[in-house]
């Protein structure tokens, strides 16, 4: 049975069930909640298409993150193309986070990160990719990727602490 498992590939359904959540978290971190759905769909459809060619024993999660990385970039570029300059930009809801959610500030904090920091944090901490592979994805050295990840974490921590102090202030005098 063990040799059989080593020589075979799981049904794609199992890949979706096991990795779908991680890929969605990564897409959300890169694109925000709204556009993440489209990037997730593009990622898994492309993965399904290519699945028979994936070598047996390959790191499925790293493979999926690589595809998601490209699909997210496609979405960012398409978004930039769609954004035609107008005289009076219409008021827009934030594309990151759910309106009214108490954690919107946090999505904003992630969104405020420069793209490389956001990607490095998502790929390393959500998908568990080593910085060597992240560097390859981002076209930079492993050290630069590691630095981007560390800077991203630092910025997030600062944003969280600011928020925490605000929450603390606003709840002053309230009975818990």
């Amino acid at each position: 049975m063990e040799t059989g498992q080593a020589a075979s590939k799981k049904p794609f359904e199992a890949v979706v069930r096991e990795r779908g959540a991680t890929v969605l978290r990564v897409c959300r971190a890169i694109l925000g909640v709204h556009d993440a759905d489209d990037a997730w769909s593009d990622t898994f459809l492309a993965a399904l298409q290519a699945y028979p060619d994936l070598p047996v024993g390959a790191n499925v999660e790293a493979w999926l993150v690589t595809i998601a990385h490209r699909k997210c970039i496609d979405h960012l570029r398409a978004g930039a193309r769609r954004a035609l300059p107008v005289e009076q930009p219409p008021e827009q809801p934030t594309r990151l986070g759910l309106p009214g959610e108490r954690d919107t500030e946090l999505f904003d904090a992630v969104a405020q990160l420069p793209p490389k920091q956001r990607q490095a944090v998502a790929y390393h901490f959500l998908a568990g990719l080593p910085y060597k592979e992240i560097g390859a994805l981002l076209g930079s050295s492993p050290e630069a990727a590691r630095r981007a990840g560390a800077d991203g974490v630092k910025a997030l921590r600062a944003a969280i602490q600011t928020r925490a102090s605000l929450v603390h202030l606003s709840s002053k005098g309230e009975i818990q």
Partner: protein
Amino acid sequence: MTVDPSPGHTEVLSFLEPLNVALEPALAGLHARLARDAQLTHTLDIAYRTVDSPVGKLLLAATDRGIIRVAFELENHDSVLQLLADTVSPRILEAPSRLDDAARELEEYFAGTRRDFDLILDFRLSRGFRLNVLRHLPRIPYGNTASYAQVAQAAGSPNAVRAVGTACATNPLPVIVPCHRVVKSDGSFGGYLGGPEAKRALLTLEAAA
């Protein structure tokens, strides 16, 4: 001090916790969308679903050519799907719509209101004499039985009684291809993929209707 090798990791994950908002419902919707997109772009080689029945949960799987597999719980649905991945294609998704007709006809069959199945079948998992036997089985009328020897004769190899037994025991499309109607010459049930109780239940159902 903690001995956690990466003390920052848990902390960072707590920063990113908001990314989990309504994750499960989002994934359910995305799965359905993937199944639809895969079907439309012809990238879904095998669609499957399960249906409840009086003989337990049945797995139904279909290629674009037709229904390729029906499996009892006793066969272990995960193993059956893995075998399909190994032998046909790993591009497999739970995608119920391709099996709507099969599910409806099975429901009618178990309700006693359907005697014959009108479904397109993909016989690619069976070859040679076994395939011969399977193609012959639907000729045993609903509510009747035939012996292994009779089926061997009808399939053109009167001496291949044991091979008929094997063909029935490895029928990839039980219930729809009625191997449960093949019994021993002495009238006893003989073996069955879904277990002897399932075979008894199917024959009892057909006798009553």
